[in-house]
């Protein structure tokens, strides 16, 4: 409420007056009353109060309603606070005014922790290896699973890789110095043993030295003959045990025996033979066995009608040493008649006959043989003579068959003769 006094300090009946600021900023009354027009009225609800305005711009009618009537208010004493009186007048008294104050800072000692300030947050930190604090549920479970306190605790210290042992009191463990005792690493070497080591060692040979050192830890290639290598050690050779077995049964020097053997390889057209009257090394002898070939020489028949038509003339000869055996076959399709002899050239492929001493001249017999001619494929019924002769002009050699008159379509002659 503003009360305006005059310069004498008196209040005046200024009801209905209007106050204004003059040019100096002083308030002064203005003669007569002010006027104006209300153009709109509004109200605002309060706690438990509902207000509304009807016709707010013309003839407003304000309605105010207590929406929460008859509320009971109870005030209770607090620590150092006393409440007296009845509704609606209460008296609240601080009964311990001397204990009041303002907290300006809170600190804490581990395991507690304070964030400090006017509104400190007090917490307990989680314990760790370097920090006291609360025990987490997980750590509690771990702790709870620990073994109970040992009734006869064993203590002691040791050195890495050394074996532990009990001292004389049986309650302290120390480690055995590796200068005297095996280390843990050395002890691990007995891993895998299946029976007493000393027993096994006693059953072993002493350490192998010398030539056999090459075969102490691994097998050799199977089935090989053993040799001493360039270092004097046991080693394998290229010779297999099968090959080595081939000398089984040998009774004297192999090379000596081999040297006494003939060569398997021979010169062309040779055989080996001993052509002496005593034991001697074999010498090469001629051996030729020519297979059947076509005979292309001429045949001279004696008689009336020669065999004719398609023919198959063949010959074959073999030489062993200086002895030659030759055979000629003349075969015709059609028989001749009244024939008494046939003469044919000695095949040029045959070795040259050796003319026996004292024989010379045309058509002379050199070697007799056997031969005949026939007209039915059967052995000739007529006696015949055959042989190797000097030919009629002494320019070569002929094979000749002489027989009683016949009607042949084939002739066969075989003669053995010597060559030089």
């Amino acid at each position, binding site marked *: 409420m503003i009360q305006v006094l005059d310069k004498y300090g008196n209040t005046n009946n200024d009801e209905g007056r209007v106050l204004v600021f003059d040019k100096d900023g002083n308030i002064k009354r203005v003669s007569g009353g002010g006027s104006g027009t209300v153009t709109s009225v509004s109200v605002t609800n309060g706690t438990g109060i509902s207000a509304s305005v009807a016709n707010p711009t013309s003839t407003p009618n304000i309605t105010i309603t207590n929406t929460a009537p008859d509320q009971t208010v109870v005030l209770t004493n607090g620590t150092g606070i006393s409440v007296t009186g009845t509704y609606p007048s209460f008296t609240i008294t601080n009964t311990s005014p001397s204990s009041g104050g303002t907290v300006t800072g809170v600190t804490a000692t581990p395991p507690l922790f304070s964030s400090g300030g006017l509104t400190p947050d007090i917490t307990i930190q989680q314990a760790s290896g370097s920090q006291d604090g609360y025990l987490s549920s997980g750590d509690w479970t771990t702790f709870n699973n620990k073994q109970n306190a040992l009734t006869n605790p064993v203590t002691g210290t040791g050195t890495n890789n050394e074996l532990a042992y009990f001292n004389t009191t049986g309650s302290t463990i120390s480690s055995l110095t590796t200068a005297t005792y095996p280390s843990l690493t050395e002890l691990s070497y007995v891993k895998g043993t299946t029976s007493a080591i000393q027993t096994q060692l006693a059953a072993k040979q002493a350490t192998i030295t010398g030539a056999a050192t090459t075969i102490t830890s691994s097998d050799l290639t199977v089935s090989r003959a053993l040799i001493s290598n360039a270092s004097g050690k046991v080693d394998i050779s290229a010779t297999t045990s099968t090959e080595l077995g081939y000398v089984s049964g040998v009774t004297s020097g192999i090379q000596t025996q081999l040297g006494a053997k003939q060569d398997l390889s021979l010169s062309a057209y040779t055989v080996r033979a001993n052509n002496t009257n005593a034991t001697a090394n074999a010498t090469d002898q001629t051996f030729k066995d020519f297979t059947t070939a076509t005979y292309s020489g*001429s045949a001279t*028949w004696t008689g*009336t009608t*020669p065999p*004719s038509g398609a*023919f198959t003339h063949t010959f074959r000869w073999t030489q062993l040493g200086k002895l030659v055996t030759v055979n000629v076959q003349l075969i*015709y399709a059609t028989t001749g008649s009244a024939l008494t002899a046939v003469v044919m050239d000695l095949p040029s492929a045959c070795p040259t006959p050796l003319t026996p001493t004292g024989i010379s001249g045309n058509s002379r017999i050199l070697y007799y043989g056997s031969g005949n001619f026939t007209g039915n494929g059967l052995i000739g019924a007529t006696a015949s003579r055959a042989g190797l002769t000097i030919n009629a002009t002494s320019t070569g050699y002929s094979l000749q068959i002489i027989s009683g008159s016949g009607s042949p379509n084939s002739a066969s002659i075989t003669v053995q003769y010597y060559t030089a």
Partner: protein
Amino acid sequence: MEHIRFINSSRLEDHAYTVVKTDNWTLPLSEHPSIVEHPDLFEIVDEDVPEYPDYLIYTG
């Protein structure tokens, strides 16, 4: 060359071609006994003799 041959002779390589030997015959071939006696078996031809013929010493 004129010669006497066996009528059944052939010039095929695998057939016999038989020539009558007349080396010492000085008369005409037509007078050779083989022609005279067996004109049915022999004939006179004036041809080359093939290689490797058979020969016949005609004895009648």
